[in-house]
């Protein structure tokens, strides 16, 4: 795959969505400042975490189970509020925006899960359209938007099928299409390849890389050492709720 510099117009995504978006690396999409998260049961999931993700970045979040990866994602979508510290998503301090503004912030974030979270009684097309319907998008704008993202993830032919008829990789691509259909600033992927075999995993990674090239910031939590080491992207390693390593162009494991 050829890596196009972000400034080269018009990118595939621009052509597909009609959006003209040039990443501004000086503009952080995610800022965590001095964040501590203590759950009501007393468990400290995050301790004094600082993390800045500039626009257009591709960040791997690695670390053992329970290190705090999922907690960071929950904080970003404001499923949880930090005990202490500041969480900023695309300029909005999520602790200050108030309940009514939460949906607006969530629409700037596309979320992808290990278990896909597709609705079994809806077709691929309907699953993707669902994200627009429930956010009040007029019907005449839903059809072209869904068709475009399905083309982007390569599922145009599978549009009328139900999730049960799809392979794992196709299901995850459907979930990615759903995450993308809002034209988000950032995609948060929580172990997106955790349920997939290695070949299919690579397909999903390739897709995420392509989306990243189109200007969408990607934050991906993973256990897949092979993928992380091969791609040489930015790696943020967590352990016991602390950031123990934050390197660009690194591998899964510490290399010194």
């Amino acid at each position, binding site marked *: 795959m050829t890596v196009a510099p972000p400034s080269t117009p018009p990118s595939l995504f621009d052509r597909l969505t009609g959006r003209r978006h040039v990443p501004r690396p000086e503009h952080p999409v995610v800022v965590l400042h001095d964040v501590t998260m203590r759950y009501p049961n007393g468990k400290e999931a995050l301790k004094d975490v600082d993390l800045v993700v500039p626009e257009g970045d591709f960040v791997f979040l690695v670390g053992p189970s329970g290190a705090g990866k999922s907690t960071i994602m929950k904080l970003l*979508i404001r499923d949880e509020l930090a005990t202490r510290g500041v969480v900023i998503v695309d300029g909005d301090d999520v602790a200050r925006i108030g309940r009514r503004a939460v*949906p607006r912030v*969530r629409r700037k974030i596309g*979320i992808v899960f290990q278990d896909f*979270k597709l*609705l079994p009684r809806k077709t691929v097309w309907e699953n993707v359209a669902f994200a627009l319907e*429930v*956010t009040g998008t007029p*019907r005449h704008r839903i059809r072209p938007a869904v068709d475009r993202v399905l083309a982007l993830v390569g599922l145009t032919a599978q549009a009328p099928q139900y999730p049960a008829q799809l392979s794992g990789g196709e299901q995850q691509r459907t979930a990615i299409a759903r995450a993308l259909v809002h034209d988000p600033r950032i995609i948060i992927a929580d172990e997106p390849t955790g349920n997939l075999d290695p070949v299919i995993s690579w397909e999903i990674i390739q897709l995420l890389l392509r989306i990243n090239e189109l200007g969408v910031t990607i934050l991906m939590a993973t256990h897949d050492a092979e993928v992380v080491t091969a791609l040489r992207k930015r790696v943020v390693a967590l352990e016991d709720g602390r950031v123990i390593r934050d390197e660009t162009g690194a591998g899964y494991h510490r290399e010194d």
Partner: protein
Amino acid sequence: MVTFVAFSLRRAWQGFWRNALMSLAATLTMVLMLLLLAGFFVLQNVLLASLGFVEQKVEVVAYLQHNATQSQTDELVGRLEAMPEVTSVEYVSRDEALRRFKEAQAAQGREDLTQYLEANPLYASVNVKLRSPAELRTVTDALQPQREPIVRNVLNIQALVERVLTVTNFVRTAGVAMVAIVGVIVLFIIVNTIRLAVVARAEEIEIMRLVGASDAFIRWPFVFEGALVGLLGALIALGLLAVSADPLSKAMVGFFSVLPLQLGSVARDTAVIVLATGLGLGVLGSWLSVRTYLIR
């Protein structure tokens, strides 16, 4: 706004049919509970009518002096009719009293003893029907010989009436309590059933939240769906009631015909109650159930 309402209604309709089994179970529960409620409501009305019937039997009877003139009697009747506690006044003349006595004897198959009488021994009377037996004392007091010279005496039934009132008031309170208890049971069962239907779709709500649906977009489809379940349940329940009302009331016509029961107004009230309860609980149930997913 139009998009929103159209979306909510469409989603409610889809939600109902795509989870047909759950929706039908909820609707069926709704039907049964509404029938239960309607049954108790009708029963309560029959009970009230019966009590009213018993209480109407309470009459104040004042016997008049033989020397009372027609104009004196008319004045007394006029004064009584003007009292707010009184519904009607009947004047029974001496001859009429004798005729009724003979009739009553004949009806019981007894010998007509009046033929051995030389003169009519009976007194003329005014029979006063009351708005409520609780007002017996007022009317009795107004009829005392000290105040109405033409009155000879007033039949004293105070003790009896008090006992009747104790019983009817108790039964009335018990009836209201019974309907209230059934109402609460119906409320909990319906709300719980709808909650089950909502919980079955927790994943869908979760996804809606994650893709940034506002609370209104999550809530209203479920509220409309609850309303649909309620409305459908109420209509089915009313249909069943309408079908069964005729044979039921025919079977009980002997009982009912004694009672001053207006079946028309009871039927209308029942319909209103069933519809309002079905719709109200459907909406309330889904509102409460979805709320647990929204507040975080």
